């Protein structure tokens, strides 16, 4: 049955149904609007998150690179320490315990006085020697 084969009175029925849909109250329309926005929102976070992850990841990588660079520049190019937990990094020797302290971020002031601690450690080694 094509549309043209429908009885004529169905045109009036269509108009009445349209009127009933237009006559919905504000509360109902508000809830419909919220439902629509909620349905659309389920797509948005995933896509926006994917878009925001790229710059966030780049910033994080840069910050990490900078921190490693600063830390590496501050490590004294002195004689090897006699600690059993010492590790050789790029020609300099760094105590693993020190690395843990720096990585933990508990005392960032310590990084600023790294030269002093290295000197102090060297003094201790001399005194023992």
């Amino acid at each position, binding site marked *: 049955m094509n549309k043209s084969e*429908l009885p*004529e*009175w169905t045109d*009036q029925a269509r108009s009445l*149904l349209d009127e009933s849909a237009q006559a919905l109250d504000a509360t109902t329309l508000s809830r419909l609007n919220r439902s*629509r926005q*909620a*349905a*659309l929102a*389920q797509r948005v976070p995933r896509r926006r998150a994917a878009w925001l992850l790229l710059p966030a990841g780049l910033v994080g990588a840069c910050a990490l690179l900078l921190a490693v660079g600063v830390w590496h520049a501050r490590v004294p190019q002195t004689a090897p320490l006699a600690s059993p937990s010492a590790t050789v990094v790029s020609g300099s020797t760094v105590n693993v315990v020190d690395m843990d302290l720096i990585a933990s971020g508990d005392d960032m002031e310590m990084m600023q006085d790294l030269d002093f601690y290295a000197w102090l450690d060297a003094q201790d080694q001399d005194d023992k020697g």
Partner: protein
Amino acid sequence: MTHTIALTAPATWTPARVEAENTGERTLDQFLKGVERRALRMAELATNNRDEAQDLVQDAMFGFVRHYAAKPAADWAPLFYRVLDSRLNDWHRRRSVRSRWLQVWTRSDDEDDERDEIAQAPDSNDPGPLLRLAGSEAGQALNAALARLPLRQRQAFLLRVWEGFDVAATASTMRCSEGSVKTHLSRALAALRRQLEDHA
């Protein structure tokens, strides 16, 4: 000097692609805005309860966006109504099971399916039952008559008459054969005519 423009991989989120997606989202928003009122009325006729109708429409919106939003916009309307029709069928099934335990004897309008279809065939020269009803009374009478129809007949009527779907699209939406759509619609028209004439 010739420059080669490197085409961006489809999976990359470039600003152009984000803009395209936002445009698509606006289109989707407009589509849902365009169908939500009729969908609510359709659900309300099925449930006779506005709160439940709103829940069903919201559920249908979520299901549609989740599963079919990526489909071509031209296919959205039948797909949205397919999701809604599925939700209405589920609701109707749950209600039937519940009422089976509450009522020992219920008379279903589907029993009318065995009536003589020739006797129910509309007279094309008749102005129609709604013309004999005035203004808001016609709306209320149609509303009551539609609410009394069996779910499948009502869905066939609303999709064909109100949404303007052809028989094939209605059959796809209701997940039944085109023959079933014609049968449901024929019975719906006959039942509506009868009920509206009784009301006039």
